[in-house]
């Protein structure tokens, strides 16, 4: 039996406590944060070294066994959903911070390192790692890299891809490649840029060189409450139109505010139709100057309450509410889907009105949290999975929202990736020719399609 041979060979690499095969051991790996999709892997392996990962991938290639690399399983697009009869390579213990070089402003880390731990390791040098997805206290750098994760501060600082300088990876056929380096610049095609965001289809990353930035010396975080979502959306356009470049511009609607408030007591005005959070960061002199301008714009935009973070603790409280919004919505509904479409900023208010219309049409509640500065929406579509057909209806509504985003010239995903969740929507954004090209690249890199099979493309 080929399966027995494969499992025996895995047993040569891993001791029993790091080769999980019993149903109770496998259950936690059946899904990630997209809990509506599940599969039972054949086994889960827990490598401690890069070499073990390489040997595992080579074995999978030899026996034509699909594998899924997994970090903390926080993906909202089903990125680390396992494959039936495949294996999961759980990378949480491949988590060494190999080097922080303050003068070169880099950190070299393994894929299982938690995002926030990079900033913690860099903090003694006055440096930090800029990308800050809401799940940053638990999500891993490997997952961030595979899905080009974003966060609240992308408008000014970019996404994960803008902060990865080099990487070492094992390709699906077992070849180990090193791409990029330690410099901000490179020669030849940007292979690092190509690898980042490939959703696990290009193998498993083993080591990553990240760019660190000096921690901004000053922050000004403003919270403004509005009686309408449109008023908050219009203010975003005015802030950007004035030439300001805040670190973050976020909006939450009333349902999201209520959920966040119930979960973490961030001190948000509970009756607001929309909450706008704007954060300036940078050199103290510039932040002070920009803050005067920002305050004028916000005051003139008709909010009924403005709050300015008094100190760092106050600032962290404001952000805690925003960053806990996804999980907090779990208090409002037994199940929910998070969408991730992007529209041009100028279409924000219109798109939100359309989402409200769709919500009423489907009779499904939708909470809205979004990175307004980037036009990146996160509608949270609430449903009760115990009611027959409710998931299908919620997915249909989610699909309508994605089609809206593409119609307005945007994207079906800003930072969560396609995963399994949005595969059927890729063709509304790209032509068959465009997708054929993407598939041709995939076929060259993984002819057996064993690396994170079933993600991005419909089989």
């Amino acid at each position, binding site marked *: 039996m080929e399966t027995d041979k494969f499992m025996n060979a895995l047993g040569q690499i891993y001791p029993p406590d790091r080769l999980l095969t019993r149903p109770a051991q496998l259950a936690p790996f059946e899904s990630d944060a997209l809990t509506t999709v599940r599969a039972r892997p054949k086994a889960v392996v827990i490598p401690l070294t890069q070499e073990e990962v390489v040997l595992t991938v080579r074995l999978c290639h030899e026996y034509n066994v699909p594998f899924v690399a997994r970090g903390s399983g926080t993906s909202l697009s089903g990125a680390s959903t396992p494959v039936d009869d495949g294996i999961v390579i759980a990378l949480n213990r491949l988590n060494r911070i190999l080097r922080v070089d303050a003068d070169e*402003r880099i950190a070299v880390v393994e894929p299982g390192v938690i995002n926030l731990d990079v900033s913690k390791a860099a903090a003694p040098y006055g440096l930090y790692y800029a990308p800050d997805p809401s799940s940053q206290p638990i999500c891993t750098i490997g997952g961030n890299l595979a899905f080009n994760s974003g966060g609240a501060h992308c408008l000014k600082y970019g*996404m994960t891809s803008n902060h990865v300088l080099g990487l070492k990876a094992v390709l699906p056929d077992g070849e180990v490649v090193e791409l990029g380096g330690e*410099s901000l610049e490179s*020669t030849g*095609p940007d292979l690092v840029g190509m690898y980042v965001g490939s959703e696990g289809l290009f193998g498993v990353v083993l080591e990553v060189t990240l760019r660190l930035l000096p921690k901004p010396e000053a922050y000004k975080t403003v919270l403004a409450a509005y009686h309408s979502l449109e008023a908050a959306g219009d203010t975003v356009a005015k802030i950007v139109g004035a030439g300001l470049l805040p670190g973050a511009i976020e909006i939450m609607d009333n349902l999201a505010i209520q959920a966040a408030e119930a979960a973490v007591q961030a001190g948000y005005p509970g009756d607001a139709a929309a909450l706008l959070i704007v954060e300036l960061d940078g*050199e103290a*002199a510039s932040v002070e100057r920009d803050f005067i301008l920002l305050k004028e714009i916000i005051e003139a935009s008709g909010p009924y309450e403005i709050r300015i973070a008094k100190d760092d603790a106050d600032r962290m409280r404001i952000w805690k509410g925003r960053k806990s919004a996804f999980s907090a919505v779990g208090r409002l509904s037994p199940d929910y889907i998070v969408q991730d479409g992007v529209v041009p900023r100028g279409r924000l208010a219109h798109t939100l009105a359309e989402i409200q219309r769709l919500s009423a049409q489907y009779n499904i509640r939708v909470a809205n949290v979004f990175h307004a500065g980037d036009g990146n929406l996160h509608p949270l579509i609430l449903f009760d999975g115990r009611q027959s057909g409710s998931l299908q209806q919620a997915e249909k509504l989610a699909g309508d929202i994605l089609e809206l985003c593409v119609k307005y010239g945007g*994207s079906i995903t800003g930072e969560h990736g396609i995963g399994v969740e949005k595969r059927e929507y890729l063709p509304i954004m790209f032509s068959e020719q*465009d997708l054929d090209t993407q598939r*041709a690249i995939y076929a060259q890199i993984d002819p057996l399609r064993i690396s994170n099979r079933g993600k991005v493309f419909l089989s």
Partner: protein
Amino acid sequence: MPRLTRCASLTAARFSFPNRIITEMNTDIIETLRAQIHGQKKVYVQGGGSKTALACADGDVGQISTARLSGMLEYEPDEFTFTALAGTPVSEVEHILAEQNQYLPFDPVLVDSGATLGGTLAAGLSGAGRYRYGGVRDFILGVEFLDGMGELVRSGGKVVKNAAGFDLPKFMVGSLGCFGALVKLSFKVLPRPESTATLSTHYISLVNGLETLVRLTRQPLELYALELDREAHLLVRVGGGAETIPARLERLKLLLGGVEVETLEGEAEAELWRGQREFNWLPEGYGLVKVPLTPKRVAALDSELGKNGAKAVYGAGANQAWIGWPGETADLDALLSQQGLSGLRILGYPEKALLGVRAGESFEQRIKQALDPANRYVCAG
């Protein structure tokens, strides 16, 4: 009809482009380019010809020109985005952006020499200003290109945030035309700083200058440029609200360590940086090579450069060296290999373009196989 010419005749070609904004791409151009690609065993994509070392010297290779692929297609100042045809001169783009107080923060080079948007992307070149917000790779959002089969392929998007599909827009940065002919490009832009100023100072040695440079990179300062040259001149540029500049300059002067500092502002300052991006410091007859590196690699490289009479500017906080090389390319190739560095020749006679060590070639070849299986596209240089 664009004329198909042979490569050898245009090593130093310069094209002039009409200054216009078009709103629609003429699809006939695509058909013509496609026919040219199909009609050739080997093709080379020619832009503005500003990077002479990247011209094609092989007389047996057919050349397709992006000269008629010129013009801004969409510009949304409120969105911080635009889409333009690949052959559009960067100078034209900059002019249009400037009217809305916006700019290309990666600071394209050789603009006055006729650099095009596509050529800038394909060569992967960013200037001194990349220190503030990032390089060309950080601002490209989407591309359309003709692949080796002559098919028009789109990747990426037109919005500032997008994670759908493999990131071919980034892959095309530095791709040197090896994988396809760029047709249309979408970029992110940013508001132009209201005011800029530069401090210029001189150290007794490169090592001293480098120490100061590293000290500055560790500070929470939003510098627009940070460059050191072989003669230990340090340039530090700040930008932002005009009223913030004086205090920030004073603070910087303290950090520079009490050396004599000259402050440049206004037209003189703008002229200084224009000169840097056009490489006016490069002596006649010297080749120009870009070498990615980090501050710790500078001293060893610089010592060897000194022995060869080379010039150099260490830009982007010493993350890219611009080397003025007076000697044989092969000697620099060997030197960079010894030091574990890579290089890209930009100005000089068209011969080998990529020097020193290469990384990830097998990964690159797999993508080449997917985009151009018949190996039609010839790399620049």
